[in-house]
C-alpha cells in the first residue's frame, strides 16, 4: 500500500491549448486601503485611481461561484482587509462554503471583539506581518506607529488558539536584523515564520535600488536563519523565501498564469496573479459583468499565458519550461518590456544582465552610504503619493 502524498500542483501542463484545472487558490484583495505605508508593497503604484470597491453581495457571489468550480484555499488580503467592515460576513459565507480561510493582515484594526467575531465566523488562520524586530525600524519601514499594536495582536492570536504565522518582508534595510526578527518571533510564540525577500513589483519596483540587498547580506541572513533553525528545531518552522535576483533560474511563478491562482482585486477586476494588471494588451474581465466560470475558462486574458504557445526562445525549446513556465510574466515585462520574454532572472535569458547589473549596484561598497545619505529617498505607499506621483495608470 503506497501511502505517499502527491503534490497536486506538480503535474506538468499538457501540450496543446490546455483546459486548466479549477482555480484552487482564490485571493480576494478586498480593498487597497491600508493604514500602513510600506515602501515594499506590491500593490499597484496607481491604486488611488482604481474604481470603487465591490459591495458585500458581489464578494459573496464571487465566493459561491469560485467554490462551485473547486476553489478551496482562500486568501483575504488587500490593502488591509480589516478596513472592510463586512469582513465577518465574508468569512462566515466562505466558511459555510468549505473554504480554508487565511487572513493576511498587518493586525491594525484587529481588536479582541473583531477577532472573536472572526473566529466565530470560521476564520482558519491569520498571517500577521511585521516590518522589523524593533519598534523604531518597524515603524519607520511601515511609516506608521504600529509596532506595539502588532505585538498586542500577536498575543491575541495566541489567546484565540490560532497557529501564529508571522511574515516579515526582507530587504536591504532590515535583512541584517534576521536574528533579532527570529528572536522576536520566538518570544511571541510563533509557530511559523516566513522571511520573504521582497519581490519587486508595484511600490517595491519603484524603490528597488534602495531595497535590493547585497549578495553578502543575503548570504549572511541565510546562514543566520540556518543556525536559528538548528537551535529551535521544530517548535518554530522558518521559511526563507529566496530573493530571485540572486538565482540563476526563475521561480515557477503562480505555477504558470491561469493554472491554479485567481485574484480578484478591489474593483472586481479578475487577474491570474495579483500583479498581472500591469501586463499590456490583456483586457482583464470584471466580476461585475462576468461569472467566475466564464472568466476562468473562457476569457482571452486568462487563456493567453496558458500552455506554452506564447513562449519565445530560449523558453520555447527549453526542457525546463514545464518546471518554471518561463518564470514571472510581470518581471519579464517590467525588466524587458515584453511579457512573453523569459524571466530575466534565468541565466539563459538574453536579458539576464539586467538582473546581474542590479545586483552589482547593490553590491557596491558605497551603496549603503549613498542610500543613507538619502540620495534617492524611499517613496512610501500612500494614497497621496499614489495620486500625485502616479496619477495616470502606468501599469506598474
Amino acid at each position, binding site marked *: 500500500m503506497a*501511502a505517499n*502524498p502527491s503534490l497536486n500542483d506538480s503535474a506538468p501542463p499538457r501540450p496543446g491549448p490546455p483546459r486548466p484545472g479549477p482555480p484552487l487558490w482564490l485571493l480576494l484583495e478586498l480593498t487597497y486601503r491600508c493604514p500602513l505605508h510600506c515602501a515594499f508593497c506590491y500593490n499597484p503604484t496607481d491604486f488611488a485611481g482604481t474604481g470603487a470597491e465591490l459591495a458585500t453581495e458581489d464578494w459573496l457571489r464571487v465566493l459561491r461561484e469560485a467554490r462551485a468550480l473547486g476553489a478551496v*484555499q482562500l486568501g483575504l488580503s488587500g490593502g488591509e482587509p480589516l478596513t472592510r467592515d463586512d469582513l465577518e460576513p465574508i468569512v462566515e459565507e466562505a466558511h459555510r462554503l468549505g473554504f480554508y480561510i487565511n487572513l493576511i493582515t498587518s493586525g491594525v484594526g484587529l481588536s479582541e471583539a473583531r477577532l472573536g467575531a472572526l473566529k466565530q465566523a470560521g476564520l482558519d488562520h491569520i498571517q500577521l506581518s511585521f516590518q522589523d524586530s524593533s519598534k523604531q525600524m518597524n515603524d519607520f519601514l511601515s511609516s506608521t506607529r504600529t509596532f506595539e499594536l502588532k505585538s498586542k495582536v500577536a498575543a491575541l492570536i495566541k489567546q484565540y488558539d490560532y497557529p501564529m504565522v508571522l511574515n516579515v518582508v526582507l530587504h536591504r534595510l532590515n535583512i541584517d536584523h534576521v536574528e533579532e526578527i527570529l528572536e522576536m518571533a520566538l518570544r511571541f510564540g510563533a509557530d*511559523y515564520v516566513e522571511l520573504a525577500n521582497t519581490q519587486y513589483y508595484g511600490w517595491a519596483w519603484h524603490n528597488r535600488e534602495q531595497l535590493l540587498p547585497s549578495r553578502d547580506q543575503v548570504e549572511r541572513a541565510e546562514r543566520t536563519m540556518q543556525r536559528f533553525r538548528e537551535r529551535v528545531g521544530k517548535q518554530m518552522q522558518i521559511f526563507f523565501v529566496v530573493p530571485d535576483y540572486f538565482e540563476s533560474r526563475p521561480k515557477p511563478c503562480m505555477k504558470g498564469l491561469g493554472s491554479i491562482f485567481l485574484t480578484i482585486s478591489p474593483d472586481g477586476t479578475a487577474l491570474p496573479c495579483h500583479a498581472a494588471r500591469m501586463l499590456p494588451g490583456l483586457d482583464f474581465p470584471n466580476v461585475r459583468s462576468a461569472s467566475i466560470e466564464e472568466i476562468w475558462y473562457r476569457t482571452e486574458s486568462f487563456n493567453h499565458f496558458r500552455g506554452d504557445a506564447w513562449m519565445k526562445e530560449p523558453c520555447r525549446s527549453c526542457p525546463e519550461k514545464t518546471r518554471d513556465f518561463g518564470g514571472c510574466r510581470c518581471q519579464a515585462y517590467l525588466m524587458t518590456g515584453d511579457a512573453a520574454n523569459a524571466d530575466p532572472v534565468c541565466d539563459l535569458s538574453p536579458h539576464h544582465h539586467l538582473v546581474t547589473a542590479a545586483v552589482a549596484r547593490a553590491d557596491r561598497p558605497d551603496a549603503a552610504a549613498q542610500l543613507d545619505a538619502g540620495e534617492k529617498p524611499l517613496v512610501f505607499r500612500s494614497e497621496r503619493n499614489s495620486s500625485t506621483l502616479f496619477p495616470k495608470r502606468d501599469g506598474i
Partner: protein
Amino acid sequence: MSDMAIEANSRPGIERGYRLQWEPAQNAHVLLYPEGMIKLNGSAGEIMKRCDGATTIADITADLERAFATTNLSADVLRFVHMALEKKWLQIRP
C-alpha cells in the same frame, strides 16, 4: 510531538490549524493548512480520515484491513503516521 514514540495504542489526530476534507472537484481528500494544500492519494486519505485523535493506530489499521479486505497493513500505517507526524500533518497529544 514527532520525537514521541509511536505505538499501536497512540491516537493520532489532525494537527491544529490543519483541516482534512473531501474535494469533489479534485476527487481526493486534501489537507488544508496555512497557505498550503496537499492532495492526498487514496491510501493516505483513507488513513488520515481515520485519525480523529480518539482511535488508536491499532484500531485504525484493523478498520482499514476490514474496509479493504486485506491484512498486514500495520507497517504501512505506522510508516505513514510517522511521516505525517514529521510533516506536522498529524499530532499525538500526550
